[in-house]
């Protein structure tokens, strides 16, 4: 078990808050699950651990987007926590799910709280709309950064500050069979994200591409990047076909 220094907790807490603001605006990827894992790894001296932890947790989230402002499991905080505590432990694979999933789902409420807290600034802004105070309206919008940043910084701080000792005692109590179960969970959980995505996309209509992607990897061992390039080629052809048929007018159809 790796105990964290206070400076490490502080740096990671600040990162978590700023990363959320990036996710809302510029989206360069600070809040990305893998990126956060790597950053945390750098802070605790094990970037490769962060890469793998972040990559594994990212695999659970591949199909999940915050469509329409829905709150989704916060795997970013989870990646930070697991990377921070897992240094020097065996069975990291099991811990990624054993601690990552509860953290990711428990911290959903912080996201909800931030979105709710900002309604207060909205109401204040409504008042300034009536008086026409432009500067104050903008200030109310900016103040929204505080609940947003806290919604990620607070759970990270508490998890990193109190988590390690808690994890220590849990680890002693958990039977080996359950740890094995969590390792299995870690391997099969990506199915959830993919399914969500398949439900979101017109999958039935594109079943041929689904089969093609599967066969290219399962039978022909093409790397994922290669499949993506073949997919891009198919996408270009589809785009061309659809736009050309439009220019041809209704006669073609």
């Amino acid at each position, binding site marked *: 078990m790796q105990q964290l220094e206070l400076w490490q907790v502080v740096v990671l807490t600040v990162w978590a808050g700023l990363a959320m603001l990036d996710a809302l605006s510029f*989206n360069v990827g600070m809040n990305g699950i893998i990126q956060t894992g790597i950053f945390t790894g750098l802070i605790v001296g094990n970037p490769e651990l962060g890469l793998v932890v972040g990559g594994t947790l990212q695999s659970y989230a591949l199909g999940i987007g915050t469509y329409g402002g829905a709150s989704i499991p916060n795997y970013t905080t989870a990646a930070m926590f697991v990377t921070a505590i897992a240094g020097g432990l065996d069975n990291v694979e099991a811990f990624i799910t054993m601690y990552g999933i509860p953290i990711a789902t428990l911290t959903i409420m912080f996201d909800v709280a931030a979105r709710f807290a900002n309604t207060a600034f909205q109401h204040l802004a409504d008042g300034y*709309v009536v008086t026409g105070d432009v500067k104050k309206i903008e200030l109310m919008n900016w103040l929204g950064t505080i609940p947003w940043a806290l919604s990620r910084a607070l759970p990270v701080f508490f998890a990193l500050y109190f988590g390690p000792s808690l994890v220590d005692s849990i680890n002693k109590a958990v039977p080996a069979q359950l740890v094995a*179960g969590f390792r299995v969970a870690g391997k099969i959980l990506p*199915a959830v994200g993919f399914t969500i995505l398949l439900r979101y996309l017109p999958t039935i209509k594109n079943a041929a591409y689904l089969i093609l992607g599967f066969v290219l990897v399962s039978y022909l061992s093409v790397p994922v990047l290669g499949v993506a390039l073949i997919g891009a080629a198919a996408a270009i052809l589809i785009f061309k076909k659809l736009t050309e048929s439009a220019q041809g007018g209704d006669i073609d159809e």
Partner: protein
Amino acid sequence: MSKFTKKELRALNFRWIWQSQIGWNYERMQGLGYLSTMLPVIEKLYGNDPKAKDHALKTHSQFFNTQPAMGDIIVGMDIAIEEVGGENVMETVAAIKSSLMGPFAGIGDTIFGVIGGTVFGSIAVDMAVNDKSYIGIGIWTIWNLLVLFALRPLMFNLGYKQGVTLVTTMAHKLRALTEAAAALGVMVVGAMVSTMVGVKFGVVKAAGTTFDLQALANKILPNFGAVLLVVLCYWLLGKKGMNSNKLLGVVIAIALILGWFKILIV
């Protein structure tokens, strides 16, 4: 005839990128961000006319929510229309905003969610977990930077230059692009099911005989377990009362139970 310099327009685009969601709330969603983005426009166009300014402030306080990058187009259009029409077009602008935000969100989520989140995400995950390589996440980061510094300004300019006509000229292209992105996304998911969903069966003893379940599965199909699980999840998620968080719980339960009895192994 343009009332805004290139520099001012770039600043307005930046305002939308930074401010669109920092004040996101359940009541108006991106509404506060939209209003705040438009403040310099409102000051410039209606600053000397209190009644028009009031009208504009109230119009832009409306509920608004779309995919942020697609929002660039809408903001660009809005500025172009108000620049010419002034307060008289306020109702038009309100109608354009509320009629475009929904379809644009659908298109944007498919294009940016699928290409960014799924395609680049899958490549990054594959390289990170299977090869311990940073290259995949590097590629994804380059894509993010391209979106921020090239694509989003481009979309804003498109909206500003073409105005409402864009909706009619681009509608078909956007739909084609969405369909193309969907096919690409589905194909990558097909690939990722093979590499990332690791369903491996154990050896089970029953009625005095041992069954090597994995050997059996391999005879049917490579990655048979993964396919089975995804089909099961897909079916479950279509059920009434089922949602993604419940599905997460179901899959963890399956793993813990079958993992306990070594029917599933790592």
